[in-house]
């Protein structure tokens, strides 16, 4: 399954050409419009910025006709536009009170970015490696541009940093608070998430193996497991606090319960997947039930088990963080978020969220790598 679409639909070619010309004109129009609503600032004052704007407009114009270089030219134009706007924001007159000129610059750059992405998406690729590179570059460029827009919007509109910090402020705070982030990471991830994950997943696997052996148990537990998976299990956090105290043990307990049911349901599904021929084969060898379990059912169930392990990796992190919202000693990602939110220092909150996001992706990535190593024989790796 290479692409979601059949490649026919996209921003039409004519619209793209017109769009690029519009972007170029927009950049130039900014020269005539005021950059600030307060002071009297104009682009004509700074010669280097002037040159950059002209160059950007030329790039967009050159990118208009569809060619192999179009994506690259558009990319340079976008970079120039971003640079100009970001440099302008350093000017106190512009930051917080940006005028029409500034916004036209930003919008033109935005339009150029959309079209550049469209051209990039349509770029023909010679082989698998370049296609992989291109498909990696597009979402990264898209994400980076969103961060840029966020930065420009926050600083250009002069949004109070208490309400919504700019990405640059968040990045600064992140770097400054690495020790605190480290402690929070250890408390939440290493102590709560990992222990709860291991306990919950092993328990789910163990119970599934037993239920597989006794059909009555399986028919009773499977609907129950499906039912419980739909419930807001995070809500047991206050009960766990009552039983295990405020510290990481109660969070680990929440995580363990959250991981148990998806693991149970998926493992049961996986253990049932071996077909009648394979089972008859084992029977013809006079294999004991234990041999059949370890040589047939468990290996066949591995793709399902890893599916649950991946799902659980995210659930575990969510469970630990939300459980910390209910109360925790002075450490932890969830704790820090709720404290800093109450203090309205949102840059720290975003830094913690960035930490949680990175931890989540890394955790998932490690499980996915392990899955690839263990189940490389599965058809899903062949296309």
């Amino acid at each position, binding site marked *: 399954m290479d*692409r*979601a*679409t059949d490649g026919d639909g*996209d921003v039409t070619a004519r619209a793209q050409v017109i769009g690029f010309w519009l972007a170029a004109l927009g950049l130039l129009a900014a020269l005539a419009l005021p950059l600030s609503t307060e002071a009297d600032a104009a682009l004509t004052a700074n010669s280097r910025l002037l040159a950059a704007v002209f160059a950007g407009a030329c790039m967009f114009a050159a990118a208009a006709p569809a060619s192999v270089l179009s994506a690259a030219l558009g990319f340079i134009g976008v970079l120039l536009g971003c640079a100009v706007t970001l440099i302008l924001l350093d000017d106190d007159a512009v930051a917080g009170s940006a005028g029409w000129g500034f916004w036209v610059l930003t919008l033109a750059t935005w339009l150029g970015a959309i079209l550049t992405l469209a051209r990039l998406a349509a770029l023909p690729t010679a082989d698998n490696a370049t296609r992989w590179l291109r498909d990696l570059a597009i*979402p990264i460029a898209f994400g980076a541009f969103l961060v840029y827009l966020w930065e420009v919007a926050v600083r250009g509109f002069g949004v109070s940093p208490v309400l919504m910090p700019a990405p640059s402020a968040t990045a600064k705070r992140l770097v400054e608070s690495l020790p605190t982030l480290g402690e929070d990471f250890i408390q939440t991830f290493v102590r709560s998430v990992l222990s709860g994950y291991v306990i919950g997943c092993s328990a789910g696997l163990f119970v599934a193996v037993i239920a597989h052996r006794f059909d009555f148990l399986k028919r*009773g537990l499977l609907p129950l497991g499906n039912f419980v998976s739909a419930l807001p299990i995070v809500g047991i956090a206050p*009960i766990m606090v*009552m039983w295990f105290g405020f510290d990481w043990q109660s969070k680990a307990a929440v995580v363990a319960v959250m991981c148990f049911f998806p693991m149970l349901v998926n493992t049961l599904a996986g253990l049932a997947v071996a077909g009648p021929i394979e089972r008859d084969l084992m029977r013809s060898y006079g294999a004991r039930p234990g041999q059949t379990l370890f040589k047939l059912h468990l290996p066949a169930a591995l793709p399902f088990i890893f599916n649950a392990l991946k799902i659980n990796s995210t659930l575990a992190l969510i469970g630990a963080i939300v459980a910390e*919202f209910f109360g925790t000693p002075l450490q932890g990602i969830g704790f820090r978020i709720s404290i800093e939110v109450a203090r309205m220092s949102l840059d720290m909150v975003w830094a913690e969220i960035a930490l949680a996001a990175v931890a989540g992706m890394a955790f998932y990535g490690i499980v996915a790598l392990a899955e690839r190593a263990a189940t490389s024989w599965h058809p899903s790796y062949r296309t």
Partner: protein
Amino acid sequence: MTSSADALALPQAVGWPTWLIKRAPVLVVVSILIVLWYLAAILMNAPMVRDAFERAETQYAVSDLIAGTLDSERPIVPAPHQVMAQLIDSVFNYPLDSPRSLAYHAWVTLSATVAGFALGAIFGILLAVLIVHVRTLEKSLLPWVICSQMVPILAIAPIVIVVLGAIGIRGLLPKSIISAYLCFFPVTIGMVKGLTSPDPIQLDLMRTWSANALQIFWKLRWPSSVPFLFASLKVAVTISLVGAIVGELPTGAQAGIGARLLTGSYYGQTVQIWAALVAASIIAASLVALIDVAGKWTERQMGTAT
């Protein structure tokens, strides 16, 4: 023994209706779990009850001890009947707008859940349709939507609540926004899978009839995606509920199931917490059941019901 044809036929116990036989394993397991629950209540509460008796220096027999464990005010593990009693009491015995009524809190959370779910589902479907038809979106946005599955997005709930609160928006809307934001991801991913599920053979056939994108969408893609839609809606509604509950936590909201859980935990009202959780579970199960019924009805109308 083997894969003979009658392996699936359940033994016909004399006199029992079929629906009971089919559900027997679940009923037995649930009954066993309830018994275990009672045992846990007795064992876990025993030390506390014994201490209370000894402090009051009253004589007590084993039966008194057991009765005490199943009836304490602040048990470590409340007994099932205690939870049910509290549930029934707090739902039926208070006026519907009283903050002591569990029905009131349940309604607050439920409304946020449903509002967020509706918003998120519609947005998710629209986004999925766009992603399937606009290639740039598929390549730039879809990877991020997929990445979002690995990231604990629920962590942004406090920010949304507080920021919106600071500009004067409180109550239902911020929670709905959180719920909507959480549930549009699974709906988008599920619908993208569903809209792209038709066989290439089917798409080729459409092309031989010179069908345009809109026709392909209505006649092929949309009907093929119905099972995926309902599957992802079930996931979305449960996430939406969790989002609504979590949205009540950061600012210590006054109303809603999350608020109830918070106050219960602050004041040590164990039975209240358990009752609130049972209420939340009932809400979740009912919502999923509703979607399931809707899905089956739709499939019957389409003639694809199995």
